């Protein structure tokens, strides 16, 4: 009896050491991918990837490695990349996926899907695009204090998302919007200017294809409907004419417009589908914010001046939104997510993404904006 027990103990303790026989990943022997750039090659339409590696080695000062490889599939591209590196390439720490111009116009979903299926890739990876071949963007050498260009681009996007200057587009959010009927993804555009990567705007995707572009200023207005602000910031250009009588006396009027900057801004939005058959929407937007900068000195102690300012801001927001919605209708890309509202109201029948894209230009939107200025800095 004692003997069998001994044998069992021996067997069980051997299990402890057997765990060492598994696949090993030694940190110093790994090339950790922080960013992938995907392009379609011009000559043969093959997938072309720019892989940026990061290596853990105290002796290396420049830990950034950029590798080019080609192939038909993502796996092949990765294996080919591994031919050019002595390190084992792993993508568990991937932070950003960058798509080049041609591949974005062709449709990025097949590549997104491959990455999504890989259990080792996080869903918090950012999806971005560039209008130049990705190699050009990723070869930028000025990446501040970040360890390499991949982490730098991630920080760039992350900071902008946290400051509410951008609409977040992680891998999860991209696929979520791609699959949802009645919503299209927006993706940040990254460009290399003077050897430094920076944000240029937002790319509008219809399904998974790049169709248009928004400037960073437009993002504010899109966010008003599609997302929410907790403490946003905006700069607006308003006509000076109506404010003439509220201008401080020592000011001469020499410009036609002036600028207002609001911050601590939060919004409350209510989208309502009034009539599913005629596709008429009613949007109520409440904006509350604080004035921090005025390019002309307007007397804010007068209540009428503030009233007028609120009105003008509301009008400006409404005008901007109307043009943006018209533009999106032309592109048939519903990045505001009006279709989501439609699918939740329409009972009994399910529509497809394509059907919604065809219907989208026919929607009517009635926008109603109310602005409330809460306070205006430390000087009245």
């Amino acid at each position, binding site marked *: 009896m004692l003997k069998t027990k001994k044998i069992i103990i021996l067997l*069980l303790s051997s*299990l402890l050491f*057997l765990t060492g026989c*598994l*696949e090993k990943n030694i940190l110093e022997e790994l090339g950790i991918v922080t960013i992938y750039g995907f392009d379609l090659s011009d000559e043969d339409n093959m997938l072309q990837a720019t892989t940026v590696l990061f290596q853990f080695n105290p002796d290396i000062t420049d830990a950034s490695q950029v590798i080019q490889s080609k192939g038909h599939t993502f796996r092949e591209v990765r294996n080919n990349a591994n031919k050019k590196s002595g390190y084992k390439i792993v993508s*568990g*720490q991937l932070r950003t996926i960058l798509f080049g111009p041609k591949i974005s116009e062709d449709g990025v979903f097949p590549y997104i899907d491959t990455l999504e299926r890989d*259990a080792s890739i*996080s*869903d*918090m990876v950012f999806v971005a695009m560039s209008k130049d071949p990705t190699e050009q963007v990723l070869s930028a050498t000025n990446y501040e204090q970040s360890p390499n260009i991949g982490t730098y681009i991630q920080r760039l996007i992350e900071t902008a998302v946290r400051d509410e200057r951008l609409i977040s587009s*992680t891998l*999860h*959010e991209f*696929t*979520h*919007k*791609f*699959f*949802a*009927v009645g*919503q299209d993804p927006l993706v940040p555009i990254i460009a290399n200017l003077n050897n430094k990567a920076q944000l240029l705007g937002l790319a509008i995707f219809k399904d998974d294809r790049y169709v248009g572009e928004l400037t960073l200023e437009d993002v504010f207005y899109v966010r008003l409907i599609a997302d929410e602000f907790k403490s946003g910031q905006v700069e607006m250009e308003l006509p000076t004419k109506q404010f003439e009588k509220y201008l401080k006396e020592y000011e001469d009027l020499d410009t036609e417009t002036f600028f207002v900057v609001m911050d601590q801004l939060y919004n409350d939005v209510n989208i309502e589908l009034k009539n599913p058959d005629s596709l008429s929407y009613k949007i109520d937007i409440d904006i509350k914010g604080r004035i921090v900068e005025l390019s002309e000195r307007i007397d804010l102690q007068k209540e009428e001046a503030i009233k007028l300012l609120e009105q003008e801001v509301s009008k400006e927001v409404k005008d901007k939104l109307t043009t943006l919605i018209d533009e999106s209708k032309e592109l048939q890309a519903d990045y505001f997510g009006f279709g*989501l*509202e439609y*699918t*939740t*109201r*329409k*009972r*009994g029948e399910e529509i497809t993404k394509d059907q919604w894209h065809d219907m989208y230009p026919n929607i009517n939107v009635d926008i109603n904006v109310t602005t409330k200025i809460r306070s205006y800095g430390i000087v009245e």
Partner: protein
Amino acid sequence: MHKQLMISKDKQIRAAYLFIVLHTMQVGVGIAGYPRLVFMEARQDSWISIIVTGLILHLVIACMVFVLRTYEKQDLAGILHTIFGSIIGKSIAVIFVIYFYLLFFSVIVNYIEFVQVFIFPQMQSWFIGLLLLSLVWYAVLGGIRVAVGASVVFFLSTIWMMGLLRKPITFIESRHYFPVFDTAISDIFSGVLISSYTFLGFELLWVIFPFINDKKRVNRYSQLAMTFTVLMYLTITMVVIGYFSPTQLEQKVWPLLTLFKVLSFPFFERFDLLAVAIWMIIVLPNLILLGWMVTFTCKRVSDWKQKHCLVALIILTLILVWIFEDREFVNQLTDYTGKIGLGLGFIFPFLLLPFAMRHRMKRKKNHAKN
């Protein structure tokens, strides 16, 4: 076979533990894939399916407790023996042993597949099986008290994971829940069927009943356990439906684990990998309690020693795990077990109900005569 089970005081457990034990039995590998399965049937009205299943579950438990109370100190094998006599009773009990074993086996293969997909693609199935089974061996040998104690510890060490849903909840798109009541009744019913597979595990009550010290409270705690499980499944499914868009959800084999892919802490970048590892602690009580059920009922039917049944169980499992490795098989087995479970878990208690009633009536008459 001994008709009456005599269980000494030092082997008994309190009814309050039923709450945790039954709950941990119901929650296992299934929960990771369940939200998708129910969603594919009942769409955004899945919550109706879950609530209906919950109500049925309460009814089944009430019925089981009624039957068990009638025969007081008996377990399933004993009851079957009393009702159907030696031969038929034993054969039905053998069917149950096989069914319990199928449950055991489907839990272990599903978890092995999990580990291979997420963390160690190269790890051999039999090796993971060996690691798990060595723990099962240890706990089952210790008897029911060790098995129950282990589940309590494991329950307490995993229930905090519900808190991890906090982050995915911030990504919820509330419009995915509408329009309400848009699903056809037949689809809701299919949702109920799918859900009932996942809620299996409460059959433990058949076997554990004689071991319970304060039998009066059995009903209360078992019902509480069901409510808790149903609420947990409901919460998880609702979060998953809000988090994924419909078509996206249909493609995720384990939506709950994919949900964890957004978790990241400053000290732990990829929390989802840890979640798979922690999942073992969720699965272990399942295996331990099922292992105990199989071997105990086996002992009651065959007069073998429980220890010998356990050795047979472990060797058989290792061999089967080694032979059947492909995913198609795992899926088929899970479906199949679920279908059997629908009959043996949900319908069977009601079949015993008339016998139990007759037994009670007879007893009353006897009392009246005396």
